[in-house]
């Protein structure tokens, strides 16, 4: 009886979340792909389906011949999309690097802090992550505007006499991404650095290794899992970021998340936005798999 109950319990625990994710996470991607192969129509919903599930397998096979790759061809013909993909990757890459350079000393400082202080510091890093993303981006508008707080401050202390134009440029986007994603970088770095055995460093120093090279030879290599997790947690969502380029960047800013949003909401071109999303997903598959392997490895070690 107990064995049977146990089997039913374990089945349910697996099947319920599995089915949910299959239906609400995996299947939607196939629908996106299907719609990316259809043509735009002035209708509700605004597309002509490439094939319907009701066609049956043979019907779908027949219609495969008529798949329209027009949307993908359109994406390659208009340099707007190519440039948007490239500049998204570039902006996300630079921001990730800057976040790492800022986040590493913070995480290292936290890991070296007195043991009693660490939980408080950890909570202070997590707290902004719990406040609204939108609010944190919004807060920067008042700071970066030409007549904003940063320019007022710099002009008052006499460093500049002309207001800096940061708002509505790519600079504002870099600041926004680094600021918003910093906790995502600090947390995995901290958990990697905190576990570190300090006696290793002491041993190296006792044997005459200078502090800096002890850091590069011991601390940094041991923190690489944290570096990888942090960089992936920043880079992948930053590539598709919409709120930051929309609110802080100007009309000239090209980022693919914004392009997709405009294609969908302003132009109401669902097939093209589905094609944009499909390609974005293909670009991100490699870093996502990389991230998942790192996660799986961490899970393995935790066991």
């Amino acid at each position, binding site marked *: 009886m107990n064995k049977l109950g146990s089997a039913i319990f*374990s089945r*349910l625990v697996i099947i319920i*979340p599995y089915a949910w994710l299959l239906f609400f*996470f995996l299947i939607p991607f196939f629908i996106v792909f299907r719609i990316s192969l259809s043509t735009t129509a002035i209708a509700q919903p605004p597309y002509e389906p490439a094939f319907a599930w009701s066609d049956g397998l043979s019907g779908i096979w027949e219609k495969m011949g008529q798949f329209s790759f027009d949307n993908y061809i359109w994406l390659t013909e208009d340099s707007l999309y190519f440039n948007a993909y490239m500049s998204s990757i570039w902006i996300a890459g630079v921001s990730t690097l800057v976040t790492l350079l800022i986040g590493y000393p913070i995480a*290292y400082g936290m890991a070296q802090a007195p043991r009693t202080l660490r939980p408080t*510091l950890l909570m202070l890093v997590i707290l902004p992550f719990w406040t609204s993303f939108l609010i944190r981006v919004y807060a920067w508008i008042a700071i970066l505007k030409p007549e904003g707080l940063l320019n007022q401050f710099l002009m008052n202390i006499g460093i500049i006499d002309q207001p800096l134009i940061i708002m509505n440029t790519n600079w504002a986007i870099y600041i926004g991404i680094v600021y918003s994603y910093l906790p995502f970088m600090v947390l995995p770095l901290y958990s990697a650095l905190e576990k570190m055995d300090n006696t290793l460093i002491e041993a190296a120093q006792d044997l005459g290794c200078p502090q800096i090279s002890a850091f590069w030879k011991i601390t940094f290599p041991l923190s690489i899992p944290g570096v990888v997790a942090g960089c992936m947690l920043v880079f992948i969502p930053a590539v598709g970021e919409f709120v930051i380029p929309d609110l802080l960047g100007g009309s000239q800013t090209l980022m693919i998340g914004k392009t997709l949003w405009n294609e969908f909401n302003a132009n109401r071109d669902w097939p093209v936005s589905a094609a944009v*999303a499909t390609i*974005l*997903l293909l670009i991100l598959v490699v870093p996502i798999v990389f991230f998942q392997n790192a996660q799986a490895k961490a899970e393995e070690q935790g066991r």
Partner: protein
Amino acid sequence: MNTWSRFNIASVVLGFSFLYLPIVLLVVFSFNESKLVTVWAGFSLKWYVSLFQNQGLMDAAWVTIRVALISATVATALGTMAALALTRYTRFRGRLLFSGMVYAPLVMPEVITGLSLLLLFVAIGFDRGFVTVTLAHITFSMCFVTVVVQSRLLSFDRSIEEAALDLGATPVKTFLEVTLPVIAPAVLSGWMLALTLSLDDLVISSFTSGPGATTLPMKIYSQVRLGVTPEINAACTILIGFVAIGVIIASIMTKRREVQRQRDEQAAFAGR
């Protein structure tokens, strides 16, 4: 050693000021008398008064709270199950796909998740509105719950579960009376995380919402596009206040529990 720790203190202090200064400025200027959010003109609560008279914002806040409460609760149930599945049953068919589907939403750009869910709802002919937003929020926040609960389950001593099962408790009873009490703090913080993720979300809500289901972030976003006003600062300050109070209460509770647990353990050892 001294120079290092000074460097450490400086980087922590500078890092935290960078994280907190914008939020502090936002809160300060919500009490500004002037309509400008950059020039201080004296203390005033008038923006809070006008906020509460703004019916549109109030309606949106109500929708947001209901969506968040429902989606966080369902997401916690599903996420806890997924965490159990991943930690307790290391071998089952399709486990790789399952763990992939759990971790991918953590990093998936919101525009993709939003668009794909919208197209799903259109494909199955489901009218967009309150229900679709809630379903979408459950989907993306349950994975965060899974990660939080999973980390607690991994450090869990399984022998007490096995003991309960050996002594004849049913699996459900074992879960409810042995496992759940131990992982309860993690489940609670998973629930809180899901709640705040849902309260915050703009992009996925915008895609999956329909008429009559405008959430507060959507409302704030449409007003921010028209310009920065102290009224929005006031709305943001209230949201931040709620989150801060919630997080502080949760951390005090976990700390108390931790102290209690240590005391119990010591008592158990002393009694031996």
